[in-house]
């Protein structure tokens, strides 16, 4: 029998790794284990609902399960439902591709005030993640702190008119929430100068399509670095765009110092500029979009800290890491593909070097997985979501884990 490989997490990094492994070694017994009943991770819950083209990589990943023999083991949390050591005992190789889902925080006074939100939590609510909290009341003046693509996604979605969301998979609850948000002003604030911002220029340029906004860019500066100059050029191109009711303001080089408010609710964000001057911006909500860290039951910091070869993704014999879980919250979907191709080569070489040890049972070691969600179960969820889409949406996500499980495991009639 062939070797057994388990990949923990079925987002882009896990799927690209599975693809690279199965292309080189089609005989592998390979399972993608996910804590959610649905696959594809951040392609489903991180790529914005109005970026359906970006979600097109799912067609590649479907082939893993439909043609290449990979197994999907959904609704199984490694570290809770099954121990990492048990998983390692059952498989020849285990790869952690679980991503990073915790929002980084600023670590300044006032972050616990009402009206202070974290980008990951907010987007999980907007994108209908089953573990999401309810959508918050933002009020008329929103500050987004951060200069990555997630910050730009939030600016764009908050600024869009209902018509501009046609064709997306934004759900009815988030759609109604956006339509009734009453937002007048969105400020996006970066700690770094514009030239060092992390967003892609194309994400900024996309804002020039918004119809309900007027955009101003303050203090973008200049840069000799070609990458920095590209970002500044994109910002200059959108400066002055539009005459709509919502104002978007870009600000740079502001270090957040303190969030202040009365009665426990935020009313002002205080910054210091590069010259050391204090700057206060009034706001009704403040969203931090400053990156992600480890969360959950896998001891990522310890595993990465003691890694045999972190750069190569080797944590310990038979234990590997890839994607954001390995390298931190940097890089977009295709970066994971390059990562995966290197790691697949390493894993296959390691398996080869081991010779022929006793057969590992793989998924057969876990009889409880008979009640996990398999690929067929996910396809029932998928079909139900597409069939129920209203006219101006391409899908309506099922937001509740119970409903997903009922459909996937067919334990009851499909609710309408």
């Amino acid at each position, binding site marked *: 029998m062939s070797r057994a490989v388990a990949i923990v997490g079925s987002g882009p990094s896990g799927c*690209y790794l599975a*693809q690279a492994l199965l292309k080189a070694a089609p005989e592998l017994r390979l399972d993608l284990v996910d804590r959610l009943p649905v696959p594809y991770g951040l392609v489903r819950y991180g790529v914005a609902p*109005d*970026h*359906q*083209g*970006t979600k*097109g*990589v799912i*067609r*590649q990943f479907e*082939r893993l399960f439909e043609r290449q023999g990979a197994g999907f083991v959904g609704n199984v949390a490694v570290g809770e439902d099954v121990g990492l050591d048990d998983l390692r005992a059952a498989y020849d190789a285990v790869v952690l591709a679980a991503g990073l889902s915790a929002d980084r925080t600023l670590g300044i006074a006032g972050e616990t005030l009402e009206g202070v939100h974290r980008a990951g939590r907010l987007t999980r609510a907007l994108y209908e993640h089953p573990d999401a909290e309810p959508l918050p009341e933002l009020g008329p003046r929103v500050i987004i702190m951060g200069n990555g693509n997630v910050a730009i996604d939030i600016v764009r979605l908050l600024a869009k008119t209902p018509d501009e969301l046609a*064709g997306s998979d934004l759900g009815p609850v988030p759609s109604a929430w956006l339509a009734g948000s009453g937002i007048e002003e969105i400020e996006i604030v970066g700690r770094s100068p514009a030239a060092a911002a992390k967003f*892609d*220029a*194309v994400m900024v*340029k*996309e804002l020039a*399509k918004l119809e309900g906004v007027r955009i101003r860019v303050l203090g973008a500066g200049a840069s000799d670095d070609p990458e920095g100059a*590209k970002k500044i050029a*994109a910002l200059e191109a959108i400066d002055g765009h539009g005459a709509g009711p919502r104002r978007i303001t870009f600000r740079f080089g502001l270090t957040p110092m303190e969030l202040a408010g009365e009665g426990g609710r935020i009313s002002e964000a205080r910054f210091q500029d590069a010259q050391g001057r204090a700057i206060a911006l009034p706001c009704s909500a403040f969203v931090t979009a400053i990156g992600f860290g480890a969360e959950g039951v896998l001891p990522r910091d310890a595993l990465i800290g003691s890694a045999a070869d972190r750069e190569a993704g080797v944590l310990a014999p038979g234990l590997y890491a890839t994607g954001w879980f390995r390298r931190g919250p940097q890089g977009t*979907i*295709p970066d994971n*593909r*390059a990562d995966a191709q290197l790691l697949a080569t390493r894993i296959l070489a390691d398996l080869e070097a081991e010779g022929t040890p006793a057969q590992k049972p793989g998924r057969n070691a876990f009889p409880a997985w008979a009640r996990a969600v398999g690929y067929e179960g996910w396809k029932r969820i998928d079909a139900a979501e597409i069939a129920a889409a209203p006219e101006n949406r391409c899908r309506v996500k099922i937001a509740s884990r119970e409903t997903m499980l009922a459909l996937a495991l067919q334990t009851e009639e499909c609710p309408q």
Partner: protein
Amino acid sequence: MNIMLLYGTETGNAEMLAEDIMAELDGDHDVECRNLSDFAPDEFDRSRLHMIVCSTYGDGELPASAQPFAEALKAAAPSLSGIHFAIFGLGDSEYEETFNFGSKGLAELLASHGAVQIGERITHDASGSDMAEDLAFPWAARMVALAEEKIGENA
């Protein structure tokens, strides 16, 4: 027909489409499928049809796997006269200003060195409702038919 099927890819979507086209044409034709990153400008062959699938990435740029090829072609500046190619683009109309600029840029680059484009450049829109292969398979069949006339005549 002897076909060199080349792809330029960033996310793998163009690679998958190229493999699908290969499966579609294989049997009736002699097809070799290669990543542009593994293809050198001096490998063009007058007796072959070069069928290219190329995506677009970032701000209208060539995808990662096509960039070394484009750089090598610009540096070597070979004459590609008598070389025939057909090209299919992948893009996303969400980014309308630079929609399918990757395949457009690559076609222009090849033409500037004297290569002859067969047929029209067809583009797929990731934000549209068509499946890429539903556009690409009929395109590939048309390109092969056109190439049989042209390369056959010149041979």
